[in-house]
């Protein structure tokens, strides 16, 4: 009762990274709230799957193992969460802002009349004073997300409804094992008690999934390099910064042609179009073909030796300096100010 829940998304029997990231965040929230962290996994052939889950500090894993639960379809997974939550009454439920999470979350929130906030970029615990009603709510989940096409950041709360539900995109939260030997309980539920047979109405007749090398298109932050980065070795600096910021690395055509970076990371007219909230352009001059692939970025930082680089005209921050000098400083001060 009143615990933090994370819905663990499965591809086959592998727990998705985004779910492990949310378990890491969920553990921290549970600590702050003084409650337990519980996880739900539903699929087929799940024997041992809890070993991927419990090390993140999970106190209880609810397993729902039956034929027909993988691949995911909407109704059976919805029934599992709806009926489990009616019994367990969690205070918070987190799930990935993936195709599955965004299919499942709304149905569950609708059935339980609880609030759901999509694509949160930050989750915090805080209080809220409702001056009109003269009430103060303690220990609410602040669901912080960009809204209105990324032009504003809103903090959303659900003062009176439980569970407080939120989805978060992959890569937004950090994934960190708490303790390899963490002791958690495993509960194998009888699926038929939660899912009526009439829920199995969708047939998946064909399915193709390819493991992506990167998620440039969906990344909220992109660190991109151009010819000005100078070498393949210097590109490692971009990967270092990207790792810290949970960003993806992209490149201009000139950098790809020079062999500094793989072709599948090329951004621009002949490559990918990206719309991150932050685009860090390193040594990119800003040919129109490149600009076409990134001009819808929310905030643009341009790091360039050349004060007159065309990209500077659309940048929000222009840093006159070399990539080798600036990137290590960004990493250093990011670490200092987030610890």
């Amino acid at each position, binding site marked *: 009762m009143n615990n933090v829940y994370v819905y663990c998304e499965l591809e086959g029997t592998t727990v998705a990274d985004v779910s492990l990231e949310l378990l890491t965040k969920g553990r921290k929230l549970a600590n702050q709230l003084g409650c337990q962290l519980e996880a739900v996994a539903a699929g087929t052939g799940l024997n041992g799957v809890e070993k991927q889950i419990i090390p993140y500090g999970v106190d209880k894993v609810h397993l729902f193992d039956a034929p027909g639960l993988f*691949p995911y*379809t*909407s*109704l059976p997974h919805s029934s599992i969460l709806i009926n489990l939550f009616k019994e367990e009454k969690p205070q918070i439920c987190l799930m990935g802002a*993936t*195709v*599955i999470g*965004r*299919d499942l*979350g*709304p*149905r569950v929130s*609708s059935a339980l*009349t609880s*609030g*759901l*906030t*999509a*694509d949160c970029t*930050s989750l915090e615990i805080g209080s*809220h004073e409702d001056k009109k009603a003269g009430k103060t709510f303690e220990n609410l989940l602040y669901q912080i997300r*960009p*809204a*209105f*096409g990324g*032009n*504003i*950041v*809103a*903090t*959303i709360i*659900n*003062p009176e409804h439980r569970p407080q539900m939120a989805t978060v995109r992959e890569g937004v939260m950090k994934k960190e094992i708490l303790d390899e030997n963490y002791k958690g309980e495993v509960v194998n539920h009888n699926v038929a008690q939660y899912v009526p047979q009439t829920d199995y*109405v*969708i*047939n*998946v*007749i064909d*399915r*193709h*999934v*390819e493991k*992506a090398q990167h998620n440039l298109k969906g990344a909220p*932050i992109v660190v991109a390099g151009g010819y000005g980065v100078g070498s393949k070795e210097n590109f490692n600096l971009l990967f270092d910064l990207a790792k810290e910021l949970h960003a993806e690395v992209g490149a201009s055509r000139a950098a790809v042609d020079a062999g500094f970076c793989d072709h599948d990371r090329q951004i621009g007219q002949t490559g990918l179009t990206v719309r991150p909230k*932050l685009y860090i352009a390193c040594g990119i001059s800003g040919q129109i073909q490149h600009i076409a692939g990134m001009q819808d970025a*929310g*905030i643009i930082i341009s790091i360039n030796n050349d004060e007159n680089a065309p990209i*500077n005209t659309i940048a*929000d*921050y*222009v*840093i*006159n*300096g070399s990539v080798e*000098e600036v990137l290590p*400083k*960004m990493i250093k*001060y*990011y670490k200092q*100010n987030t610890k």
Partner: protein
Amino acid sequence: MSLKIIVLAKQVPDTRNVGKDAMKEDGTINRAALPAIFNPEDLNALEQALRLKDAYPGTTVTLLTMGPGRAAEIIREGLYRGADGGYLLTDRAFAGADTLATSYALATAIKKIKDYDIIIGGRQAIDGDTAQVGPQVAEKLGLTQITYAEEILNVDEKTRRITVKRHIDGGVETVEGPLPIVITVNGSAAPCRPRNAKLVQKYKRALGAQEKAALGDALTHTEMYESRPYLNITEWSVADVNGDTAQCGLSGSPTKVKTIQNIVFQAKESKTLTSSDKDIEDMIVELLANHTIG
């Protein structure tokens, strides 16, 4: 086989073309400064509906939208492209709705329309990007759903099952399910056909009651609206759909906005920095403070 299709569509502010005057000084959104458009993915959904109408003669396509009186524009845009009619849910009691209260209102209106095989809408609206209303409407109607649809491949007359190609993380999937069903369509699906010139001629004077009232004495050809009922866009209030006001609008919304922070417009003035430690640290602190990173 003929199908009865309801298209859920929303009029949204064009958040992709946000100008400097889009925010008021108090940090709230100046909706008047933003052009109102047909939500892009709802147009993709309309196209899927119109293709079914092309494939299965006798099929009807009905738009359902919720908004102020001027949102009748959405229904006109649908009529111009081949839809058969539409309903505008409009009432002060609907204002301030989050996704749950919105889906409640839409579901009650759909229950009033009563006869339907497919309810189809865009995956998400560009002013909220939540993708929640489709699945919530499905849940409230007790229907199954297919989200992230790329293309409707087939509707089987005998089994009354629909086959849909949909996007999943890292791939694609083909699924089939029973009618009636709720489908949400991706922006990567086929774009909507343009307006048809003949239909524009036919429907350009189609108006909702609030639009007519706003014209007042300037409303010409009043007798035309009696002789051509298709020019009257039906407006429904909460009472018209037998809605419970407690579940509508702000009071029916479990989520509340605690605070709003305007990020983009704070930084739109370009700043020129050196590579000094102080400049870099100041920038990082600023980006952390406004949630751009961290």
